[in-house]
């Protein structure tokens, strides 16, 4: 049999026949996820299709995270619609405040290596961190998955991205992820899969791998899968099933020298406007935001706390932090991170997506500059088209919160 990429291997197992790039296929779906942005339309479409209960209620997850807790009565009704659907169908609900969908799916062991996972949220590609074929779809596609347990797709060709060298101290997974998006471009992987591997990837934790896979959609990728070398999970898994065959066909090979990377910042209004931090030193920042499915985990909060310990947020700067889940919040409370950040002047928001997607909490003012750990800086993304959004790592955002402008964090670490 012809050598296969990771994507081809996973899809073949879910189609019951050998598949290669360009094939059209119907594949079995292992699990599905919807949020309060996408579930209401999906439930409506599901009912119109004649659906009664999802094909596999135990693996259908509804997460209230995008506008959570409800900011107004209209959205409160949509949340109730989701609760009612879960009661009727036996699917699983994550209540408002539990966390961001992508954090929860991995934190709660809802997705495993080699599975097919479809989520009605574009950052579902995050689960490529542990070798799943995971991708975002719209509400009606998700409704069809709930109805049939299957979906159709075109098997994507794969780009292989190899990151050589080791990341330097102070250069984080987010910096590498932004550099990858900058290298391939906002549409560089459209209709394609990306496999990410190399010396710089191997030592990364699952949290860091999630940060990298998450940005896959910002290059247009259908999936972004990290090779399993160095992957540690709390259960045994078949690494061969999520590793490419020797001689697997790649449509393109891209190399990045990880050891040459500086901290990166993506300038508005596109995530692929990534430049070394050195080009933006001194840029004033009014609003610093740490959180989201990219960088709201304990490791990220600790990175911010290392900068903020014993310091204060600069006058004229607001620092808002939304932990990726209640579990992250609890862990940060237990180890003192929460106290360090609060003492420095940070305000904590409930776990959720609100500020990143402009739904509620932390909308920037006209003409303000935001430095955020999120994945998107499109015009209007945070709810105000008159604000400018820059993207960076938690360390870079924390350092800017202290300085009131973009600074090289190593200056603060060295003090």
């Amino acid at each position: 049999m012809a050598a296969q990429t990771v994507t081809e291997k996973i899809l073949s197992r879910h189609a019951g026949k050998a598949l290669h790039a360009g094939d059209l296929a119907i594949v079995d779906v292992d699990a599905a996820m919807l949020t309060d942005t996408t579930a209401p339309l999906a439930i409506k479409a599901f009912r119109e299709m004649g659906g009664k209960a999802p094909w596999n209620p135990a693996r259908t997850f509804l997460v209230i995270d995008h506008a959570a807790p409800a900011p107004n009565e209209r959205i409160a009704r949509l949340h109730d619609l989701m609760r009612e659907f879960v009661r009727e169908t036996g699917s699983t609900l994550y209540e408002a405040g539990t966390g961001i969908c992508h954090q929860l799916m991995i934190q709660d062991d809802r997705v495993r290596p080699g599975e097919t996972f479809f989520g009605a949220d574009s950052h579902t590609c995050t689960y490529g961190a542990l070798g799943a074929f995971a991708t975002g779809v719209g509400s009606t596609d998700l409704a069809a998955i709930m109805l049939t347990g299957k979906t159709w797709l075109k098997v994507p060709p794969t780009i292989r991205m190899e990151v050589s060298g080791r990341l330097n101290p102070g250069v984080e997974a987010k910096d590498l992820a932004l550099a990858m998006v900058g290298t391939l471009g906002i549409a560089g992987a459209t209709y394609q899969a990306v496999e990410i591997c190399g010396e710089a990837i191997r030592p990364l934790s699952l949290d860091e791998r999630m940060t990298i896979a998450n940005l896959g959609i910002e290059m247009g990728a259908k999936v972004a899968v990290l090779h399993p070398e160095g992957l540690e999970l709390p259960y045994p898994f078949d690494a061969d099933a999520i590793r490419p065959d020797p001689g697997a066909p790649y449509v393109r090979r891209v190399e990045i020298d990880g050891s040459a990377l500086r901290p990166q910042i993506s300038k508005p209004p596109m995530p692929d406007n990534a430049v070394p931090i050195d080009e933006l030193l001194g840029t004033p920042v009014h609003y610093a935001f740490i959180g989201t499915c990219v960088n709201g985990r304990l490791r990220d909060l600790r990175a911010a706390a290392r900068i903020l310990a014993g310091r204060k947020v600069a006058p004229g700067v607001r620092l808002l932090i939304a932990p990726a889940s209640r579990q992250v919040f609890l862990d940060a409370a237990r180890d003192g991170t929460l106290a360090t950040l609060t003492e420095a002047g940070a305000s904590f928001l409930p776990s959720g997506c609100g500020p990143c997607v402009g739904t509620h909490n932390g909308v920037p003012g006209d003409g303000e500059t935001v430095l955020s750990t999120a994945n998107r800086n499109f015009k209007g993304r945070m709810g105000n088209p008159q604000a400018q959004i820059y993207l960076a790592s938690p360390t870079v955002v924390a350092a800017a919160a202290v300085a009131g402008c973009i600074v090289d964090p190593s200056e603060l670490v060295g003090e």
Partner: protein
Amino acid sequence: MASTFRGRAHVYGNDIDTDRIIAGKYTKTLDLQSLADHVLEDLDPEFRSKLVKGDVLVAGDNFGCGSSREQAPVALKVAGVSAVIAKYFARIFFRNAINIGLPVLEVPDLEAASGDEIEVDLESGTVRNLTKGTSHNAAQMPPVMISILAEGGLVAYLAKHGTYRLAAG
């Protein structure tokens, strides 16, 4: 859905993301008309007042990048846009548009200015700029997508077939 229709072009550039098609703050609703009221607001605040039902959106590369929000094609469709023609589309937007019955056509070589009269023939996949007198072929879609669009969307398709069929028909 009529196979052939005409409309005036509204021309925009590359990488129009779904946040600019419909901002996240408007997406949490089942009131589809309210989506249409804010369509393309952060791209062109005049768009709603200029749009005449049946008009065609013409864009460059990577139309609809970003979020998976199906509210983006829904907003365009409910507002009265009859088709989106782009050099190419972001993957999720393209699927969503077909699934809700909004014709989307990949035409790499269409030259158009805002106001040009565009004719779309879905059956043959032909796009004509009647103002400029040019004719273009849209990229071929997989048969399953042609069938979904012919039914008016995925809801009607699945209500009829019960499951996916990869071949045409």
